[in-house]
């Protein structure tokens, strides 16, 4: 069984044990070919996984495709499907692997297709305005925070978002990103240092 620390950060689910039971029943149901269990599992994770994939791919449509491909694949391979550990960590990791694969393909295709220099940056650019752009006037605290978060280095932002937005524990994040728990902690500390600095700047502007 998972150590209790696994659930420390999942403030979302007030009763972690029952959440685990539901996850296990979904897995068992899907393996047995139960359509309803499969649909319930899909609906439970759809929004979170699409949001996570979108943060990596910077495209809502691409994120939707990655997630729906993943679930179709699970259904097609259900007889062999054996997610180890927590189901949510498994699904985040699978989503991440597929998103990264897609990014690599896009990059390969783009550099093949043409040499237009503006295409590549567009791939990596955020959907939010560039916070380093001096023309962006940050008015309220909410947007100051979202700008500061968006301005985190990519890896740091991913760790931070998985922890804060997706309620994954540090060890789950380590599993999803294939890094050590220590690295997760370091990235969280970096994120906080960065956010403190940026928000101090914002407060001093008042």
């Amino acid at each position, binding site marked *: 069984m998972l150590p209790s620390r696994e659930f*420390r*950060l999942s403030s*979302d689910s007030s009763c972690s044990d029952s959440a685990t039971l539901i996850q296990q029943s979904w897995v068992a149901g899907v393996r047995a*070919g139960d*359509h309803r269990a499969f*649909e319930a599992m*899909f*609906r439970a994770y*759809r*929004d*979170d*996984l*699409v*949001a996570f994939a*979108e943060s990596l791919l910077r495209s*809502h449509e691409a*994120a*939707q495709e990655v*997630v*729906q491909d993943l*679930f*179709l*694949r699970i*259904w*097609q*391979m*259900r*007889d*062999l499907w*054996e997610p180890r550990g927590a189901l949510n960590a498994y699904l985040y990791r*699978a989503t991440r*692997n597929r998103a990264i*694969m897609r990014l*690599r*393909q896009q990059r*390969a295709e783009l*550099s*093949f297709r043409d040499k237009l220099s503006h295409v590549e940056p567009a791939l990596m650019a955020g959907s939010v305005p560039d916070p380093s752009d001096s023309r962006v006037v940050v008015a309220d*605290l909410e947007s100051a*925070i*979202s700008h*500061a*978060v968006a301005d985190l280095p990519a890896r740091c932002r991913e760790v931070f978002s998985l*922890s*804060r*937005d*997706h*309620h994954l524990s540090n060890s789950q994040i380590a599993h999803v990103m294939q890094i050590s728990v220590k690295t997760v*902690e370091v990235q*969280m*500390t*970096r994120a*906080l*240092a960065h*956010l*403190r*600095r940026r*928000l*101090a700047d914002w*407060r001093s502007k008042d």
Partner: protein
Amino acid sequence: VTHDPQPLDDATLVRFLSGEAAPDEVARVEHWLSVSEEHRAELEILKIVWESRPKINADPDDSMWRWISARMRESAAANLESTKPATSLLRSALAPPSRRLLSRPVHQIVAAAGIALFLIGGGTLLLRRVESGRARQPQQSASTMREVVTRRGQRAVLDLADGSRVVLAAGSQLRIPDKFGVPATDRDLYLEGEAYFEVRHDATRPFRVITSVGTVQDIGTEFVVTALPETKGLRVVVAEGSVAIHGRNAKSFAPVMGDPRANREPLLTLRAGEMGFVDSLGLSIQTRRVNVGAYTSWTRGELVYDGTQLREVVPDLMRWYDIDIALADTALAHRRLTATFSDEAPDEMLKLLATALDLRIDRRGRSLTLYPRTRSRLDPGPVRPPATPQPTRSNLESLSAEKAS
């Protein structure tokens, strides 16, 4: 920030905000808060930062679920149509499959004598009846067996009559005597290739896997047996319990009923977490501890490599993806790969492989040639003769592939 008289380190603050701080850390944060109004204001903001962003409905018109459920119906229908002659033959020879079974993407075939068989990887499975009279084991009385042969790109899961399960790897062959599972009969299986065994232990009926190199006898266990041509011997990895490996000659292996088997000395005995290797002649014997997961991952549809030389990886990829791979440069064979291929399509797997090992892949249908992508061989260098001949076509291809990385 630097002029703060009482700085609080970020790591402590992270743990405090996440509710993971130790009591002394909480005390330090509380002290820090008591020092100034400024600190309390900062913490209020950080608490907001630490809250999650609101969730959004990722798919208001439910198009994702509609896409998935349409594909679920499609693949069920496609499987009904793709029934090839050999499969039909198989089906007619066995119990008639139900509609539900046919509609599954993973073919499930219920074979005779209580063996349930699942085929993964599509295509048709070779299942036939063979006479074993002149088999490798002369001691074995002539009896009929069923033979399950997986082609490249296929994998089969067999639930045997005694409750044991076998996962047969791609490009492998398993023979099951008809009397397998009959009470008070030894449970012998004949393997060429690779398979994973989950044995329902029964002390009165030894479970043995017989290969051309030697015999693996379970002592209540889960294990992988590999006797592929490229293995050049017999490799056994034990996940649970323990197994004994006997050589193939009659002295060390005499499968006659009533023999006091406990007295026969095995070549080696393996416990969970150990890998044993016996070479083709039964002379070289090695045992070492291994990461078992890397050897059993294929049963879950994953190929896991951890610093594995390419020469060991290539035969696997050929079997699992049903492709032919040649190395343009023998030095490539020693490059080491650390990767997990889970459910990638062949193209995706090849892209990953090329990226990981810095290779260029030349592809003609199912035949691939791997080239090292060394800049020195492609780039003529800064000192270019003024009258450069036109680059050849193959040069151009190499260069464009180079850019693609």
